[in-house]
């Protein structure tokens, strides 16, 4: 099934107060951020999307795919599911080596050229990690950042999922700037739960949450877009210092 859009219809927040935006539409190609304080219900909102909520979750929200309720196949067979969800906590538990796992997954997804798809996936993941992962190693031996990087790479390349939900990748120990840049090359719906201004401002729009409910949807305007450029510079500077610290070098003042 080709995904054209996802619609979320308002439900209720933690005290039963309604979402203040009746209807939110994600169109193919959109990058969306979900922002709000800790505990405000951001993860819960993407959970609703991942579950294709039909007034049957505590939030009573409803999610439609291309104007219709999601077909049962989406939930029953994970390889039919167009949504890939990379959670805050997902870890690999598999005892298989990385390459064997990826080959098996690519085979399940009926990808034509398995070995090149697997290679591409590992290359993608390695662009996001500090130290490249060893494909001969067991999945459980991967570090937290390598795990997250591989999950993203698998969702994008092997599963080729049209909708990708990412919960706080800035805390995942991966290069999020690189991730953002790589991901934007793909025509998909990306939903980022984030506390990161750079990710939030490079999205098409952001959903603001409070106390379990959506309070508004904000589209970046000209002033924000200008500020976003400044934020990028500050952020790159921070990344530069981080790189120095990480690689055991001394920090120098000249650059500021």
């Amino acid at each position, binding site marked *: 099934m080709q995904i054209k859009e996802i619609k979320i219809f308002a439900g209720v927040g933690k005290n039963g107060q309604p979402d203040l935006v009746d209807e939110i539409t994600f169109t193919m190609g959109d990058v969306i951020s979900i922002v709000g304080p800790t505990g405000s219900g951001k993860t819960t909102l993407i959970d609703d999307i991942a*579950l294709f909520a039909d007034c049957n979750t505590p939030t009573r929200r409803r999610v439609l795919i291309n104007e219709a309720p999601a077909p049962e196949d989406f*939930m*029953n*067979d*994970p*390889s039919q*599911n167009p949504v*890939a*969800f*990379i959670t805050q906590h*997902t*870890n*690999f*538990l*598999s*005892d*298989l080596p990385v390459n064997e*796992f990826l080959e*098996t*997954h690519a*085979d*399940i*997804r009926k990808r034509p050229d398995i070995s090149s798809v697997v290679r591409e996936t590992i290359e993608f993941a390695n662009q996001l990690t500090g130290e490249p992962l060893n494909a001969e190693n067991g999945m459980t031996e991967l570090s937290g950042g390598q795990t997250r990087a591989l*999950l993203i790479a*698998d*969702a994008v390349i*092997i*599963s080729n999922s049209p909708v990708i939900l990412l919960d706080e990748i800035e805390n995942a120990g991966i290069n999020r700037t690189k991730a953002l840049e790589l991901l934007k090359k793909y025509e998909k719906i990306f939903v980022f739960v984030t506390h990161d201004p750079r990710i939030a401002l490079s999205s098409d729009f952001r959903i603001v949450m409070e106390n379990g409910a959506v309070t508004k949807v904000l589209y970046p305007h000209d002033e924000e877009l200008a500020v976003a450029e400044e934020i990028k510079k500050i952020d790159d500077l921070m990344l530069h210092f981080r790189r120095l610290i990480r690689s055991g070098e001394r920090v120098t003042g000249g650059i500021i």
Partner: protein
Amino acid sequence: MKVIICAGPPTTGKTTVLRQVTRRLIEAEFRPAYLKIDVLYAIEDQMFQKEFNIPSKKVYSGELCPDHCNVMVLRDAVEWAQKTSADFLLVETAGLCLRCSPYIEGGLGIVVLEATSGMNLPVKIGPMLTLADIAVVTKIDLISQAEREVFRSRIMKASAGIPICETNALCGIGIDALVKKIHASPDIGDSLVLRGNPPVGTCTVCVGKKEIGWQQHFGVVRPLENDIFYRGE
């Protein structure tokens, strides 16, 4: 009455799954009864009694292999459940013996596997999986979608065509597919027959003879280098 037999390795979520099922059966105004067969210790019967106020019972298999025990007690259990005017008998077995399977003809056999158990589990557990009518995969909340898919294909490989219900049994997500299957299962007839062949038993061991070496045993025995044969009358 329908008889639902639920097997699976220890702590895979059998009880959690059956609680979700029970809740839904009661909501639909059915009257389930619950039987737990375990080796040495179980409290599930009290849980079901307390949480749902339904007829509940447990049997300790003790020295017997729990699946053998199941064969011995199930007819009595069906009568017991019928007396309580139950319309579903839910049986949770201990599922320790990987050569036996507890399922019966004319009843629904459910195997519960946990998604976190390692990719080789499906090929390790033999008839417990291959003779089941449906495989329930629990704890999908703990693993990635990619791993779910691979685990699923491993199950398919071990038991082609078996329906699979993936669930986060803690909150009951995905459990409706199982409940549908339970409703669609047939009512139990008069004859109760074990599904598939029980393994050829080293029965003198089962009954407690501890001496090592086939020379010490009767019934179906096997030496190291030869195939099994029958020794005795």
